[in-house]
């Protein structure tokens, strides 16, 4: 079975590396996108299993990317996880995501989550091959 793809939309280099490494350790393929514009471009071509989305991004905001995700049919099954330190902003957007992780996100928190997502993904892929 192929590894599921996690798209990490995050402008902080260190944070995206940490997210990426943690998810890879748990069986994900990862791709890092450091700004909003690249994210919009990239989302037309791929259908990741998980998107980790930072809300404060250069060029195009996280909220716009959320709209794009919801408008794209092939991303309907993608688990969208907002990662932000801005609790207020997160509350406003929580209905548009599967999960909101308030930064700082600990590695153990992330790995727990990755394990659950992976199980979900495997279950849905074996049910609908």
């Amino acid at each position, binding site marked *: 079975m192929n590894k599921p793809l996690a798209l990490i939309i995050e402008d902080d280099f260190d944070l995206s590396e940490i997210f990426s490494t943690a998810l890879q350790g748990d069986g994900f393929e990862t791709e890092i996108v450091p700004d909003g514009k690249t994210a919009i471009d990239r989302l037309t071509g791929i259908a990741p299993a998980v998107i980790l989305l930072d809300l404060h991004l250069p060029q195009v905001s996280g909220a716009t990317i959320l709209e794009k995700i919801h408008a794209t049919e092939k991303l309907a099954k993608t688990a969208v996880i907002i990662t932000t330190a801005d609790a207020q902003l997160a509350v406003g957007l929580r209905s548009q995501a599967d999960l909101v992780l308030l*930064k700082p996100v*600990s590695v153990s928190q992330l790995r727990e989550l990755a394990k659950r997502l992976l199980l979900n993904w495997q279950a849905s892929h074996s049910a609908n091959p």
Partner: protein
Amino acid sequence: MTNKRHLLANRWMLTPVEIIAIVVFVVLTISGVFVSVQDALQLGRALNLNLTQTIILNQGIVNLQREVQLTHNEVTRLLGRLDNPPKPITRFVFVKIQVNNLSIAVGSPTRTYIFAKDDLALVQEIVDQSAVIEHWITTWEKSGSTTQETAILKTMDTQLGTMETKIKQLVDRQAILQREEIIQTRDSLGASQRTTLLAGSVLLLVSIALAGVFRRTLTLRLQQAVEADRLKSQLLANVSHEFRTPINAIQGYSQLLNEGTYGGLTDKQQTAIRRILINTTQLKGMVNNLLDRAQIEQGRIILQNEPFAPIELIETTHSALNILAETKNLELTSEITSDVPARLNGDVLRLQQILFNLVSNAIKFTESGSVHMRIYLTDQEHWALQVTDTGIGIPLEAQEQVFAPFWQIDNSATRQYRGSGLGLSIVKQLADLMGGNIDLSSQPEKGSTFTVIFSMETKR
């Protein structure tokens, strides 16, 4: 610290106030208002006054002299001749004096008052109030940090305000008495009573004037300190994100290394990375507390009110702090009683911080045994977050102070138990913001229990 010393301790070192006072003094002397500088200085020394106080005393003598038609020399000599010269009770009140069974004497900057005995209680209150202020001045002189100093100055300012109000009250009550009556009473006194009255009047006058001068100086210092504190808080609140980001990165990489995500480590490498993690966790806790204090002071904390799972609180705190507990061979245990609903309402991040601070504080001050976290219902409307340890405990007399910022049992504790001394004060501030109540019960050498009780309908 230096300025305080100038103002209050080093009797003959000059503050700006004193320099101005000297200039006024010299001008008044030249213009003949003061008859004898020598007499005034001698009297000041005899009464253990500093230069400012001496000058104020002189002004009082000049006023009194006008009032009772005695010469300056006669007044100073009267005071000097007393077998039992009045001793300072505090820095502000030198004497409270009972003239006879019916009257007490008080001087004001412009006249001598004789009060009915009924007012004795009020005079006593002023004396008591000044004793409280005296206590705070001593604390102020010993205070180390600007923040501590600001807190003390604020308290002192309030106390001085109360004292001023009482003095004004005393004077106002007198204002309704007929002046003739006062003079009659005064004239009917015997010679020794008159002397005592004079001494008491002059010295109370000094205390009233001193309170005024001190308060003005204090107000200025307070304004400066408050402004400095505000700027510091603003800076911290502004750079908050910049502080947290690198610490989170260090913690993230360390966790990945520790979990072997980048490959296996040798024992020595594993030990080193654990030490990095432990220290980063401590640093992060301290930085978070400093930044949150700044944000609370700036009024920038906006509470959320969202449903959360109580288990989240326990799990997050456990995963962050277990490494610290393990290092000291302490057991970190937890319990959620069965009556607690699966979802509670509140600001989960702030609640996590309360629990984090209580638990890290408990770990810090516990050398053996355990730290226990508990979430339970106190009644139908309230739930509680409780942390119990088997640590050094807090003596009863110190229990009220533990929630004050930067406080630790003693200063040596700061070195022994690293930390900013901010954790519990943040707990208190956050709990207050959320409308919660903190309860502390503790026995030295046995341990402490901190309980924070919240309403089920958390305040927004």
